[in-house]
């Protein structure tokens, strides 16, 4: 695999990861809250679920997604030899 091929493959994997990350982001940012009223009829840890997702649930999900993303992207960089040399 020459450098140009590697770049193409690296960018494809990067794009795929970006799309997965943003799909999760869309779900926790918009989809869940669109149905807040319906979710409020359910209860989670004593909270109405719709309220819980806005006050805490989505935020927890964001933190997990973002740390996962940082790891996954670094793995992609390493796989194709584009990670920075450790100082």
């Amino acid at each position, binding site marked *: 695999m020459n450098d140009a091929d590697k770049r193409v493959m690296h960018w494809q994997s990067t794009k795929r990861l970006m799309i997965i990350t943003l799909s999760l982001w869309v779900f926790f*940012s918009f989809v869940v809250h669109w149905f807040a009223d319906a979710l409020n009829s359910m209860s989670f840890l004593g909270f109405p679920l719709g309220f819980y997702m806005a006050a805490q649930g989505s935020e927890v999900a964001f933190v997990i997604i973002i740390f996962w993303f940082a790891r996954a992207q670094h793995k992609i960089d390493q796989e194709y030899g584009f990670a920075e040399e450790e100082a």
Partner: protein
Amino acid sequence: MFKGDFIDNLPKIYGTYTGGFIVFIILMAILEQMGLGADTIGILFVAFTVFIYAAIGWLSRTMEVGAYYVAGRQVPTVFNGMATAADWMSGASFVAMAGGIYFGGHGYLAFVVGWTGGYILVASLMAPYLRKFGCYTVPDFIGTRYGGKLTRLCAVVVLVVASFTYVTAQINATGTIAARALQIPFEVGVWFGLLGILLCSMLGGMRAVTWTQVAQYIVLIIAYLIPVFWMSNKQGFGLVPQLVYGDAVTRITELEQLHGLGTLEAVSGAAGGLKALTVPFVQAGSDALSSWKFVTLVLCMMAGTASLPHILMRYFTTPSVKAARQSVAWSLFFIFLLYFTAPALATFTKLQILDPNLATGIIGKSIAEVNALDWIQKWSNVGFLQVIDANGDGILQLNEFFMRGDIVVLATPEIAGLPYVISGLVAAGGMAAAMSTADGLLLAIANALSHDLYYKIIDPNAETKKRLLVARALLLIIGALGAFVASLKLTTILGAVAWAFDFACSGLLFPIVLGIWWKRANRAGAIAGMIGGFVAGTWYLYMVRFAGMDPWIGIDHLRFGIIGMPVSLVCMVVVSLMTEEPDAETQAMVDETRVPAGRAVLRATH
């Protein structure tokens, strides 16, 4: 202290600092027991912390371009995360957010969601690539990627408008807190706040701002969390309040019915800015319009997060691309600590006020009894609170109690009957939050003007010394301008903050994102995108807010990015496709931006 192995010693230095701050809190608590007055404690808290920040600012002074603009690109991941969190969490987050939730309930939580999730966009679409690019400012990226002085100028204009809107709100917040803690008039407080802000940033630029922001984060997070933990434990909700306030939320819904929320008539006569409780806490609207309003606000705040230059430029200071990415994650974590606490704080405060079974409850008590309370008197005197016995029955009802949202955070320790040392701590925390954001914003504006407008457009031959002098002079001028506008009190703190996000995402989001992700994007497209989006958004804001136009499907002045962003995207894509594709050199530059390894696109000093 700031020489040699300073970076290696960071954990030790900030560990000592945190310890020292806690010792200071304990000292204040002891002095309070010995009879030191509440006012003196407040003054000591604010004065002591501001003095520490100024000292850090002084120690970090520099005359090097790299240190001034990007802190020498050596800020470790976790520390940059803390600095970004302080940069990010403004007076609005600290002082107004819990109050907003208190009054706005579920609908207001859109801000909490929007101001956290935006970091996923920052991490996945922007920060690592901008770090690789090696720019000093956001217009520096746009100007280099697309080329041309007009392109750079457009980016500078959007940046200045968005950041300036924001910075006046921050200086306003420092003024409010300083006025209250130091017992001085608001107009004087504003200038005092500005003085503190400038001391942190003028001598050392980004380097000084970075290390003061870390110090400010530590103060603000301690100040936010301690009262909530204390209150929760005092009232037996449990050890970790954030996890267990579900029952309190449910109880509030019962109490709202008990007190007749929604059935009481509105009482008029309260001073401007004061509100009575009218919106149920938990209930989300059941129609599509309320869902639409929630998600559009979330989207504007998230897209704004990803476009605000004072945030993006924090990731230019990390040692590597990988570090930039991880640093975004740490930023979100540190922000999350405060944001998932804010709804808990709003819940506890609300319960304290509404629940007749608690000693602190005031709704349903006699007006004479309520008016005799210390905190009611204190906050009425400064015009933050009002009790109006509209029906003359001598009993305080829900619709007769008015307050400003800001005091949910500032007065909670007093409402809950915590010692005054906690109130002093909260004032110091609010000051830290507002100052750190103002610092970042002022620096973003001054850097864009000095680096992009002065050095890159007006005088490319300027010497280093002259460049840095110009940068400092601009900082001073913009700060003074901000303080002047803030002292006019044009809008409430939060209205202006949301506008900054809408301005930023209308003008800058797509030119930045597509500059990395779409090679075909060219100069004409970027200019069209910036101007189109910014003008459309601004026009809509003007029409809705000042010209009396009816908002389209619930898109009010807080959400005008919903108009600006699509216009920006369409303009940029259409104009790019209609004009020539970028030359091979630019395309190679984009390729280089997309991989972490290798040299930065821009030279180390430029």
